[in-house]
């Protein structure tokens, strides 16, 4: 039972990441590959505040969001002046920079040694230590984030983002400032991704920079490419598929040495097949060009 709950907790964490990346890609049309950096910033801010300063987990969340939002502004201001592939390359550069900082700033992050002993969340003396109670916490937080994105999606703000995705010139001609809205989307997407980092850190109780690499950004991107972008169903189905798929492989009695490679091959094959047959993803409504 705990095994299933563990996968569902990871689903909740990745759902937050997928929904927040969907705000950038599916709503606004910004192909960003820096999401693991936001995830990592959230994880490290929460961890350092808890481990070094004794903060309560729930107090670290707003600070992790704030830190990630500040980073989002730093990424957005130069990057959003660029278009298409150049924007993508700029976000890639920021992803690499954040990883390098986490890896090399040993005095603060302990670099490759990582930070162990991260406390579990506590509220009024109750600790979310056991997997079943952590599952409830993760699901509640993921559900709240889902509601936030639902609210944004159906709001005039979401409508403007979609118009920018569809045709930035038209949005401009209708009196909407595309740069301002893109920056806002970046800040919201980055800020909410930090919550996933905070949750992850307190769940696994140990973090190191290898959890927040470019590969992780690509994995989050794959979730929404496979599930589909531009709505809320796509990231949900994408998260379920991408997190349950490797677990299914466990039951196929494939030797461990082969299973890990098989997972990568299947992910790759799935992406190629989908791009060929359904480029907008399984439940997506927007096809990224």
């Amino acid at each position: 039972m705990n095994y299933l709950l563990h996968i569902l907790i990871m689903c909740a964490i990745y759902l937050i990441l997928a929904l927040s990346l969907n705000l950038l890609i599916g709503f606004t049309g910004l192909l960003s590959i820096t999401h693991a950096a936001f995830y990592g910033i959230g994880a490290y801010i929460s961890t350092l505040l808890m481990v070094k300063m004794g903060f309560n987990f729930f107090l670290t969340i707003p600070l992790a969001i704030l830190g990630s939002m500040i980073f989002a502004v730093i990424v957005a201001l130069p990057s959003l002046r660029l278009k298409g592939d150049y924007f993508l390359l700029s976000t890639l550069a920021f992803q690499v920079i954040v990883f390098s900082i986490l890896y090399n700033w040993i005095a603060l992050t302990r670099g490759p040694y990582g930070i162990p002993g991260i406390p579990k969340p506590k509220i009024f003396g109750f600790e979310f230590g056991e997997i079943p109670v952590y599952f409830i916490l993760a699901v509640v937080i993921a559900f709240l984030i889902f509601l936030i994105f639902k609210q944004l999606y159906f709001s005039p703000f979401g409508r403007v983002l979609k118009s920018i995705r569809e045709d930035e010139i038209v949005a401009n001609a209708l009196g909407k400032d595309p740069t301002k809205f893109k920056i806002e989307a970046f800040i919201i997407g980055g800020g909410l991704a930090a919550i996933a980092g905070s949750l992850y850190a307190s769940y696994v109780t140990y973090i190191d920079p290898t959890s927040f690499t470019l590969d992780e950004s690509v994995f989050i991107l794959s979730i929404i490419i496979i599930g589909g972008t531009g709505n809320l169903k796509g990231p949900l189905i994408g998260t379920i598929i991408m997190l349950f798929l490797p677990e299914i492989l466990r039951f196929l009695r494939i030797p461990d040495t082969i299973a890990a490679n098989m997972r990568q091959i299947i992910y790759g094959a799935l992406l190629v097949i989908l791009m060929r047959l359904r480029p907008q993803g399984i439940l997506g409504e927007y096809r990224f060009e």
Partner: protein
Amino acid sequence: MIRTNRVSKSFGGIKAVDDVSITFYDKRINGLIGPNGAGKTTLFNIINGFLKPDEGEVYLNDLRIDNLLPYQIAQLGLGRMFQDTRVLGKMTALENVMLAAKNQIGENPLNVFFKYRRMQWEERQIKEEAKRWLEFVGLQDKIYTNAESLSYGQQKLLTLARLLAGKNEVLLLDEPTAGVDPGFIPVILNLLKNLVKEGKTIILIEHNMTAVLEVCDWVFFMDEGKIVSFGLPSEVLGHPEVREAYLGL
């Protein structure tokens, strides 16, 4: 009042707009005609800020606007209908039109949560008005259809509804009748006349000379980036260069 003063714009070695000074008449339909490549659309792009002139200035009611960004110019009440329809394909017709209302409360993401009721109230008003405009242009059955699924003519009508919902004082219309069902052209032309009666200023690029004769109060003929002739539609359409451009005479 829209006015350009000695506006020029070149692309490479080609002068698309060459020293153009025009004062468009307020609360009138101003026709801007000329052969393809004459510089009409470039002039539109300069007026609504998508292109910066190499030289010259553009004024809206004595406010210099050529140094503003397109969205800032749009917020001043200058609306644009593009030559190609430029509908927002993955959005419904209703969403396309609702987008046109300026400075909506819910466009601020914080207001989506902290001014929810006010936003909802405004959203209902905007929705009702958008439906009225869609009904007005005859798209009442297509409200929830994605814009990309509409025919070309219907997309033109949708962009017209979007423009009207924006409550702009000055409308730049780039060939509004092109591709529209001929039966609906008189409806569009009547609509333009009514908009002028309501105090709107219209600048109309049009190749349909019957339409130009019927609705325009004043016509500017452009060729090779310059204003070659201007005056009453019947006068300008009698001009030899205009006759050559449009009638091959």
